[in-house]
């Protein structure tokens, strides 16, 4: 840690450089039998059976889970789940022919948003797409049909160092055009916009629908801030944001009947080296790292996602889910334990807060469990910048996340 340059790192920039995807087909995948709301589903297939891509493998009517990869079920066992569960039931599958597209369900035809959603739900997709955590789309398992006046398809990566979204947008330009039409119908949206980093928006002129140019500073590409940017440009009505991956997945299901089998990951090692990989859903995180030639050491953090918002994993056997965009190793030295000294009111957090909150005040309330008094807790977008810059090493974002959960529970 140098002494002089420290203060300059306060601004984090998103990357959008070109780095083509390399496909990695793992010899074995783990397919977790977990539903849209984290519920464990009972398998309806047996060990030794060969399943075709898209067949229902678990759950019951109304809450079915489809496996997007065809292959032989080697075993039904347990594996860790990315949200931190120690062991959930999984199908251990040996994939067969994963490169070819196989229509698993009937393509859906309707110009009515409600009807399309009904078909999507009937096909048992809420669980299959649960990895795409977007507030525009979820909870859609509850029976409501997501609608939007303006639908923003975000091709901008959320976290620092990730390029999966922007690279996917680059590589699927033509398909994106068709996908935009499909999701426009699905959401009943009057207007479609592509949110893209300003630096590379020239590359996407061909999209034609006009783009929403985003600053390359973290966290401008978070859903809530994209909505703000859209509204500031005069967008009226309900604005929803979905990722480019979700748009392509929905398009592939609705127009072709093919379930999304691949997750696009930006894999980053402990030295900051990056590589874009296209891996089968269910691939073990450890296998991905090994394929990329990247290692980790004891005390490192292995994250699904990027360093600012990623979920730390305790086991490299944890499978990758659909909709994930990164796999990052952060060296242990980057992050000593929080020592939580008192706030010195320096204002660094409120200076960087993209939601213009007062993290120093909220932090003082949350530190002593007075969550109700931290009135603006709801407006926090949990980008973690306050915690990143805090010179007293206070776990601000962690307190806010906990406070929100506790408040939600007490309601």
């Amino acid at each position, binding site marked *: 840690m140098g002494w002089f340059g420290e203060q300059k790192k306060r601004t984090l920039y998103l990357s959008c450089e070109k780095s083509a995807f390399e496909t990695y087909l793992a010899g074995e995948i783990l397919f977790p039998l977990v539903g849209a709301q984290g519920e464990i589903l009972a398998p309806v297939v047996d060990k030794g059976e060969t399943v075709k891509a898209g067949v229902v493998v678990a759950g019951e009517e109304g809450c079915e889970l489809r496996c997007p990869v065809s292959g032989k079920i080697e075993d039904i066992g347990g594996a860790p789940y990315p949200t931190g569960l120690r062991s959930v039931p999984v199908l251990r599958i040996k994939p067969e022919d994963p490169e070819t597209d196989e229509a698993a369900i009937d393509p859906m035809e309707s110009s009515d948003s409600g009807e399309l959603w009904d078909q999507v739900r009937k096909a048992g997709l809420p669980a299959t797409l649960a990895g795409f955590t977007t507030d525009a789309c979820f909870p859609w398992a509850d029976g409501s049909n997501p609608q939007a006046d303006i639908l923003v398809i975000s091709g901008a990566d959320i976290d620092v160092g990730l390029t999966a979204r922007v690279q996917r947008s680059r590589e699927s330009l033509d398909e994106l055009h068709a996908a935009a039409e499909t999701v426009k119908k699905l959401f009943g949206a009057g207007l479609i916009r592509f949110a893209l980093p300003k630096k590379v928006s020239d590359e996407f002129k061909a999209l034609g629908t006009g783009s929403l140019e985003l600053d390359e500073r973290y966290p401008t590409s978070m859903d809530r801030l994209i909505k703000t940017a859209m509204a500031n440009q005069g967008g009226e009505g309900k604005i929803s944001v979905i990722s480019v991956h979700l748009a392509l997945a929905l398009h592939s299901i609705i127009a072709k009947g093919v379930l999304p089998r691949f997750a696009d990951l930006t894999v980053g090692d402990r030295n900051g080296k990056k590589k874009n990989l296209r891996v089968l859903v269910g691939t073990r995180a450890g296998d991905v790292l090994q394929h990329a030639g990247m290692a980790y*050491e004891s005390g490192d953090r292995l994250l699904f996602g990027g360093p600012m918002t990623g979920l730390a994993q305790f086991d490299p056997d944890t499978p990758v889910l659909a909709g994930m965009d990164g796999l990052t190793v952060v060296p242990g030295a980057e992050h000593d334990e929080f020592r939580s000294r008192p706030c*010195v009111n320096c204002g660094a957090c409120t200076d960087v807060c993209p939601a213009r909150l007062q993290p120093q005040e909220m932090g003082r309330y949350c530190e002593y469990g007075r969550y109700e008094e931290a009135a603006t807790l709801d407006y926090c977008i949990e980008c973690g910048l306050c915690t990143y810059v805090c010179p007293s090493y206070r776990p601000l974002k962690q307190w806010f996340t906990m406070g929100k959960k506790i408040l939600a529970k007490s309601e």
Partner: protein
Amino acid sequence: MAKNILRVGPSPHLRAGAGTVQSHYMAVVALVPALLVAMVQHGPRAFLVLLLAVVTGVLVEALTQHIFKQPIYALDGHAILMGVLFTLLMPPSVPLYMVVLGMALAVVVAKQIFGGLGCYAFHPVLIGYLMLLLSWPRMLAPIGGETIGTGSEWSVYAVTAGGLFLLVFRWINWRIPLAFFVGVMASGGIFHVIYPETVGTCLEQLMTGHAVLALFFLSTDNTTSPANKLAQVLYGLIIGVLITVIRVYGIWMEVAPFAVLLGNLLSPLLDRIQPKPIAMEKNYA
């Protein structure tokens, strides 16, 4: 081969790195030129005062933290910085027991009783200094008014150099010093026009006493200054204006401590001036 063990924890998993400890030591480093100038001008006695102030500060802090059953952070640099600032405020002729007493008061009464770093309401060094000043005005403010930190214009230059160093490397906030500067210059200019005979030019206002020390080091103390941008500007402006107002209408030779303390008093109030959270402006649901 044993498996590598991963560590888990909630995001974010990165940190910008600069801590309060570094910023305290940086401020001490920035004051080294001023201390050197002081030692050249006032001889070994200045060094003795410095040594006594720093050692007392650290020891008393460690002792109080021990008594208050707090983790001991006496070497986090803040007690050392307090000792350095305290030294610069003392007259060279100050009795040594008074240095010990003043520093002990500053650490115990003005800092630790409030809860230590981050919790005190007023700059502890100034409280310690003012307790001595109001109790023994003759000894603390002898005729001539010279202090260890203000021997000649060279002291001012040295403090300015240190302050600019902190500003350039962003160890201190720039809004407060800038607004402070504007406040002193503007109000100093106005007073010079009103009382051209008795009040000096605005530059003289800045060069006299501890105005520059207050500008870069005393007013920018994080704990006692506001966190919001507009509030910081107002805070700096108010202290800057107070410097000249107290100098013109007050009875004290040294005005910077009073101005900064009055600013500290307003700081929590000023911090109520907050921007509206983005999500509250429009409903983006």
